[in-house]
């Protein structure tokens, strides 16, 4: 297991925050039982199963990291769908010149999607039936989390699609979630009407959690070249509020999950989630 975060945790002023944030301690945080229910089921590791591109991103110099981001932006061409009024489209494989995803799904344009394509950060979540999910939650005392979607098709894409649609976010790109079911329910209703669906999920033990301020501190202590490149990544997203490339920096720091407020969080990969395959309009 390599990468900056494996040895030193969050950098750039997050020392006290980073204290105690290591995978073993996180795992030990569960109160009872274990994850043995999933024995034999592959759970992606915190470093995306020693993904060499992720390890390279974590270990390379700031100048090289900035160049890597710029290269991604140029390499992965985005072709908007002229029939999509919201700007959706598809990404082109730089090697073949063909669309990477051929399902007809329209992706948002954003550099975190390009980052994921370039690094192969695309692990799928562990999906189980409701009985198994509830049993694991009962055994481990894990917190049930919720994510709203506008349709079952969106949930299916999150759970099963080969190419993840990396969400866009206000404080970094990724898959946002909350432990407040009412928030996810409201979103599903607001965006999808009667078609809206809510997934219930939990973090796998491989989740490595940091907070927004530690990530921002890392950006602020980076060279102007890298922080500028990260900012450009964040600003490339369709919705960008305070998106300054925090997802990319969190990964560089060795984390895959970021908490923004007490019930407002995101993960940068689907691979850290245990997901119940049964969705509901309302939990």
């Amino acid at each position, binding site marked *: 297991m390599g990468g900056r975060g494996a040895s030193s945790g969050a950098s750039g002023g997050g020392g006290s925050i980073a204290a105690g944030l290591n995978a073993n301690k996180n795992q030990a945080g569960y109160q009872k039982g274990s994850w043995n229910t999933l024995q034999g089921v592959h759970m992606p590791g915190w470093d995306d199963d020693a993904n060499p591109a992720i390890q390279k991103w974590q270990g390379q110099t700031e100048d090289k990291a900035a160049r890597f981001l710029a290269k991604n932006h140029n390499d992965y061409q985005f072709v908007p769908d002229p029939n999509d009024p919201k700007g959706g489209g598809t990404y082109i494989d730089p090697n073949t010149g063909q669309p990477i995803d051929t399902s007809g799904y329209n992706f948002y344009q954003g550099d975190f999607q390009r980052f994921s394509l370039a690094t192969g950060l695309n692990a799928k979540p562990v999906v189980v039936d409701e009985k198994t999910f509830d049993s694991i939650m009962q055994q481990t005392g894990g917190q049930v989390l919720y994510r709203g979607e506008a349709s079952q098709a969106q949930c299916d894409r999150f759970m099963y699609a080969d190419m993840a649609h990396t*969400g866009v976010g206000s404080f970094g790109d990724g898959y946002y979630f*909350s432990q407040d079911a009412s928030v996810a329910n409201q979103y599903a209703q607001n965006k999808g009407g009667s078609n809206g669906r809510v997934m219930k999920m939990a973090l796998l033990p491989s989740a490595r*959690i940091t907070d927004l301020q*530690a990530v921002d501190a890392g950006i602020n202590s980076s060279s102007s070249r890298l922080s500028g490149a990260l900012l450009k990544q964040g600003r490339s997203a369709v919705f960008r509020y305070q998106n300054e490339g925090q997802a990319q920096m969190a990964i560089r720091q060795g984390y895959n999950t970021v908490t923004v407020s007490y019930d407002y969080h995101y993960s940068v990969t689907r691979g850290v989630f245990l997901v119940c395959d049964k969705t509901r309009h309302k939990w």
Partner: protein
Amino acid sequence: MATKKKAKGIPGRDDDFGVWMQEYLGITKNPDGSVNDPRVKKNKNNQQMNDIIRGVKKKKGER
């Protein structure tokens, strides 16, 4: 505790849960970089939030 404001919804697609939540919950960023959540007087520290989303229960007497 502040009430959740009625989110107008941001014109966009259906998978912008994080953006929608930010507006719905009224979470903003202060000029100093700290996060302002109108629902809480003081944000929890990272370890507390870490424990919350993992479901870690406090032991008796633990603060």
